[in-house]
């Protein structure tokens, strides 16, 4: 599903008013953080491993041209085909061509954010090919025609009743009187339905968490095993992935795996970590005959050598969104982007253009939690700040905000005036509000007082008090 972030402000308000979503967020948010912390606490070397991970990704990106070349040559040597795609359109066309050549009617899909990024499902459907998502969360979203709201827990915003309702609506062949006693019954039904699809599919499409240059391998990480069935059962396996995922060798990949699952789900290791290299070998009793890699750029090469290069380290663990107070309040759909949360707020302006996505870098309190949990230490708040600067340079904010910011900047650059002004305001408001202790309405602060009272200042400004304290010390 291709998306746009222009409506972020309205969508955020909707998200906060959505009782079902708020219930799901309240359930998930503390769990994500708790599980990650427990996994980190179990591994004394975790902090040191983060630095190792940063070093590996920085090395790979500083030599990305070289390693991509080595990777592609190794894929071809193992009998696979690499399709280099500059744009989302190129990638969609490449996948369609492979599916057509295979005579495919149904394709199964493992979880892949890059296929979301390029809007692959809608495109295949429009061209007469039925894509079926097999990750449980992605499957229900496909039934409900919703985009994912999270990059590793795509459907965590749904409540159990919604699962049941969608299954009853779509699985018409099953008895309408059946009862879902527990969550396990929902899972069992999906497993049964998807098993048949797996066995009938002509092409299997997966993403990749890592690409290994030396051996030309693609690596997927799942817990359900759907990615493995997707790439093992059909005759053709297509990996849709992007250029920044390449690392030099298996040892580099293994080091990154040590921080990935711990940061993501709080597992020490995901259930299935699978390295795929080419198609079926002589004597093999199973596995795909053809192996294709659709290798997408889509603006990533343009980040190399810029202040956004650090973003290319991202290994898509979702720790940043799991710990983000803004994400936790508005949910993933509000962002209107393939990648929500802090990492998405840096990436989306690159993918959609800053004009369409200019709200997203502002969807942060800059509390810094995202950076502090990022396994590859991406300075996310700083990168968002870079986008805010570009937004200002391009005059993308409302006129009143620009003037307001300009006025504030004029004062901020004149400390004496600034201190006098704030002091006058603090003392003045303190006197005016002394009786009630708060203001229900304030000129120029309607955005604040519409939802809550503004407390009246109790005395002087911090700076004045500090100066006073230093003088009397």
């Amino acid at each position, binding site marked *: 599903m291709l998306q746009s972030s222009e409506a972020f402000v309205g969508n955020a308000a909707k998200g906060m008013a959505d009782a079902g979503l708020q219930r799901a967020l309240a359930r998930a948010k503390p769990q994500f953080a708790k599980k990650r912390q427990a996994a980190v606490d179990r591994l004394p070397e975790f902090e040191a491993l983060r630095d190792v991970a940063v070093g590996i990704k920085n090395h790979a990106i500083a030599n990305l041209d070289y390693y991509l070349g080595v990777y592609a040559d190794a894929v071809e040597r193992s009998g696979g085909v690499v399709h280099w795609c*500059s744009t989302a359109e190129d990638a969609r066309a490449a996948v369609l061509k492979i599916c057509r050549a295979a005579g495919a009617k149904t394709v199964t899909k493992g979880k892949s954010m890059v296929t979301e990024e390029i809007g692959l499902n809608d495109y295949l459907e429009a061209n007469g090919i039925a894509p079926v998502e097999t990750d449980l*969360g992605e499957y229900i979203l496909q039934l409900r025609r919703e985009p994912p709201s999270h990059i590793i827990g795509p459907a965590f915003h749904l409540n159990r009743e919604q699962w049941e309702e969608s299954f009853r609506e779509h699985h018409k062949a099953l008895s309408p009187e059946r009862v879902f006693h527990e969550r396990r019954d929902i899972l069992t039904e999906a497993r049964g339905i998807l*098993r048949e699809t797996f066995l009938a599919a002509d092409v299997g499409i997966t993403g990749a968490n890592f690409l290994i240059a030396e051996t030309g391998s693609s690596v997927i990480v799942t817990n359900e*095993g759907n990615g493995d069935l997707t790439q093992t059962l059909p005759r053709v396996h297509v990996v849709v992935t992007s250029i920044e995922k390449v690392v030099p060798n298996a040892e580099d990949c*293994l080091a990154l795996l040590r921080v990935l699952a711990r940061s993501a789900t709080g597992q020490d290791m995901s259930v*299935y970590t*699978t390295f795929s290299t080419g198609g079926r070998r002589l004597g093999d*009793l199973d*596995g795909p005959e053809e192996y294709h890699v659709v290798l997408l750029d889509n603006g990533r090469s343009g980040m190399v050598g810029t202040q956004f290069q650090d973003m290319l380290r991202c290994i898509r663990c979702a720790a940043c969104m799991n710990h983000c107070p803004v994400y936790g309040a508005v949910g993933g759909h509000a962002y209107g982007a393939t990648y929500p949360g802090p990492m998405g707020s840096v990436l989306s302006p690159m993918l959609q253009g800053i004009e369409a996505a200019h709200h997203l870098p502002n969807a942060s309190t800059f509390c810094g939690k995202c950076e502090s949990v990022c396994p590859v230490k991406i300075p996310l708040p700083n990168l968002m700040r870079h986008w805010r600067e570009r937004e200002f340079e391009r005059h993308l904010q409302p006129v009143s905000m620009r003037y307001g910011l300009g006025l504030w900047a004029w004062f901020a650059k004149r400390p004496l005036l600034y201190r006098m002004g704030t002091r006058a305001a603090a003392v003045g408001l303190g006197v005016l509000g002394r009786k009630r202790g708060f203001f229900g309405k304030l000129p120029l602060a309607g955005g604040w007082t519409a939802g809550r009272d503004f407390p009246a200042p109790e005395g002087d400004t911090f700076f004045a008090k500090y100066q006073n304290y230093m003088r009397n010390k």
Partner: protein
Amino acid sequence: MNRDAIIGAIQRGLKRGSLPVDQQAMLAARTALHHRHLIPARGQLDAAGRVALFAQYVEREFGTVARLPNIAAGPEAITSYLAKQNIAPSIVVSPHPDLEQIPFRDKPMLQVRYGVATAHDAVSLQHAFAGVAETGTLVLPSAPERPVKNNLLPDTAIVVVQAKDILACYEDAFDKLRDQGAMPRNVMLVTGPSRSADIEQTLELGAHGPRRLHVLIIDGES
């Protein structure tokens, strides 16, 4: 061509052309060296510690473990496990030489078929190339004698691993793989049975892969 366009765009970003030959040689040497990064202490144990930690982690991740003195004890261990789980005594066995030596004739009630699992097989018996103590992980590389479907399709997966093949860390397993030749087509690292927490963040076992993972650790040689 797109390859040149993408590589060219990256090089423009890096503000250089293709790397000089000597630097390419340095990178090739770095790649081929297989330098190990930081290995956690728990991935550096001795043989006894490795087997104990491996078993502990398999169980932590909702698998089950049985330790057998030798492979001849396999049929008894398998039939009693299946009986306890109330599963019909019928298994598909990977055509691996070690598994072909198991004396199944001792247990005539157990139906045994060697080959690739289909959607109708409820239980598989697979051979592990290695175990990794660090996280209780099984290493299952594809090969004619180790079909991938046997890891995935049955509801219950039973996996045999020799105690001597339980290695300290993932890197040990990849060294061992390289000793055998080229990278296999498919290498699965399996840690526990299949699961999903997609429904209300609540963990349920048996999403698409096996719901049960039972590991038989063989202490002696067969």
